[in-house]
């Protein structure tokens, strides 16, 4: 899918909560082997949302950082699309609240998107269309989550909180990067799901992994074929990170190297931020890329599907880096919590006054 008018990323912004819980801490509670997760899955610790944080607050922080880098008037934003699998409301879009807080309302399109872990990247695709068609001047796409996982489940060792936002606009001298093309590969696959009234998702174990590789490999190959490009044409490659092993394996199978994936691989230190995962990985890469660098991105959302992108860094990227806190800044800003505190904040312990 190529936009009829060239579009680009005018600004990007990340946000990761400061709290962390170590995989070892979780393993001790459940009597599990820490190495299964640290060595087996390549995760040391994950980001935990504070007691007054949720997907809306994370989305707002990311959106404000994106605005700082975009250096545009908020009222020029024509759409705010928030992608998440943990919106605080089943009915009442996060997009509305974000739009209001950043000063972009009322002449604006706002909506929430859901496609498991790839809801954030879909927002980018929708904004590409809205912008290149001339319907709006700028669009904001956010991917953010306070990821859910059943206590004691394998998912608990990775499910984390965080997100990032992108402001998309026509390709001009203010654009930090060009989004050249995108493609999506979607099937009906029940690998991981959550019913509306349920707090935690269910998954198919090994089957979920198979679905991951199937969709990522196909979307990746599809995009490279459409572009007539090869892995070595890219300086950076970012793949969805449910753990530290899958994206490395996907990279290898598609022909990419660990050197290409290194900068965008954040899961070892912050866990899997679900819809925030690829947006945060992309933000980290934008903060390292030099003008002219080609970036290959493939997200994955259970249910299932993958979005692939070809992005190229432009000259304006260098001056925008320091206009807002970087992903690295947020990764290094951390404070550890124990399991009791984590359980209380995640509302796994229900007190008299606890509201879900």
């Amino acid at each position, binding site marked *: 899918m190529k936009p009829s008018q060239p579009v680009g990323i005018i600004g990007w912004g990340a946000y990761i909560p400061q709290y962390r819980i170590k995989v070892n801490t979780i393993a001790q509670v459940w009597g599990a*082997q820490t*190495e*299964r997760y640290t060595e087996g899955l390549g995760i040391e610790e994950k980001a935990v949302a504070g007691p007054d944080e949720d997907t809306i607050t994370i989305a707002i922080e990311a959106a404000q950082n994106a605005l700082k880098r975009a250096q545009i008037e908020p009222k020029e934003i024509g759409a705010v699309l928030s992608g998440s699998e943990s919106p605080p409301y089943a009915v009442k879009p996060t997009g509305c609240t974000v739009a209001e807080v950043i000063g972009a309302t009322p002449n604006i399109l706002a909506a929430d998107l859901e496609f498991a872990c790839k809801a954030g990247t879909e927002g980018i695709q929708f904004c590409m269309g809205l912008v290149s068609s001339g319907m709006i001047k700028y669009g904001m796409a956010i991917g953010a989550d306070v990821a859910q996982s059943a206590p004691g489940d394998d998912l608990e060792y990775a499910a984390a909180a965080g997100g990032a936002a992108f402001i998309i606009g026509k390709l001009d001298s203010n654009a930090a990067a060009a989004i050249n093309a995108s493609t999506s590969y979607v099937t009906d696959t029940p690998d991981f799901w959550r019913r509306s009234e349920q707090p935690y998702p269910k998954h*198919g*174990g*090994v*089957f979920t992994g*198979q679905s991951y590789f199937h969709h990522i490999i196909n979307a990746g190959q599809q995009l490279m074929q459409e572009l007539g490009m090869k892995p070595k044409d890219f300086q950076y490659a970012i793949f969805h990170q449910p753990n530290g092993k899958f994206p490395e394996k996907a990279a290898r199978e598609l022909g990419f190297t660990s050197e290409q994936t290194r900068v965008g691989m954040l899961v070892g230190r912050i866990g899997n931020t679900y819809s925030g995962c690829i947006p945060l990985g992309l933000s980290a890469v934008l903060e390292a890329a030099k003008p002219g660098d080609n970036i290959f991105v493939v997200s994955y959302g259970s249910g299932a599907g993958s979005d692939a992108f070809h992005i190229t860094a432009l000259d304006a990227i260098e001056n925008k880096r320091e206009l807002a806190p970087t992903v690295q800044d947020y990764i290094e800003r951390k404070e550890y919590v124990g399991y009791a505190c984590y359980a209380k904040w995640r509302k796994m312990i229900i007190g008299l006054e606890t509201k879900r």
Partner: protein
Amino acid sequence: MREVAVIGVGLTKVGHLFSESLRSLFSRAVRGALEDAGNPKIEALYVGNMSAGQFNNQENIAALLSDFAGLNGIPATRIEEGCGSGAAAIYNGYKAVASGVHDFVIVGGVEKMMDTTANDATSIISTVTDQEYEAFLGLSLVGINAMVMRLYMNTFGVDREPFAKFSVQMHDNASKNPYAQFPFKTSLDKAMNSNPVADPIHLMDCAPLGDGAAALVLCPKEYAKNFTSKPVEIIGAGHGMDNFIFHTREDFLSLKATRDAAREAYRMAGITPDEVDVVELHDAFSITAFLSIEDLGFVEKGAAGQIVDEGLIALDGTLPVNPSGGLKARGHPIGATGVYQMAEIVLQLRGEAGARQVPGAEIGLTNNISGFGASSYVHILRV
């Protein structure tokens, strides 16, 4: 009683076969066996399966599987005997041909376990133990084997290393088996340091979960030469039983069911253990393999570790064990395992086992066990 031969073998690869179903797996195995046998007209089907009711929500599978395998209209029976369902199916098909009731039968086994999560699968497998005295109190099958392994280690002064070496040998063999679930080698280090499951059993001491199906065509030996130049005859068969509940057994370090089954099979075949060239035994756990090596009469009690340590169970050793890779590395689609075991022996005796061929194998033995030796089957074959 007529002499019975195996004239066809059909197998699927074992693994997490998400794109295959119970019926598609079994159909493939049956078609393979029929093709291998030259498509004789089949009169009856005996299929082993442990738990389609729980894994697949499907009972009444004899009718289902015969229909979808293209064997409509012939008598079909599903036989369940826990992890020994495969050998049980073989034994009953064998009896049908030996007694003259049928001439050409298919005996097969299938298990489609991977449409459940690992936790659910483990719970389902635990239903082979006593639900009132064992499972109900939290004693799982691996728990029983773990206690026995510790008793064995203490009694015979054996440490974990020979058990780990056994697993290494299984993977070595499986690396040469195109049907194996884990066709790759491993190291002693990895086996020794694998995650503990139920001390002293570690992950590499355990057979994995997996899907698969296998089928054989049996017929009277006198007709076999019309279908194959290498008929393999079943010359001995034995079915032993023991008290169901583990704590009521007379001896925790020996499976009476296996000893009884083996005695009967050897007697029928007119051979002694040292005449067996190759064996496929039931290594659900490495300790089960050690007990089996001893109960089948190959070495005295407590000595299994020694021959494993000395590498004598390798393909070119004095007692090649599980050339397929065994339950550990070939895999263990529960109801099908007994049939996979015999399929391997048939291929070995025909000289068709490729890179994992045991040189000059003429007599082979299979041992398929249910639970922790509640029942046990031994079959002996000769080419």
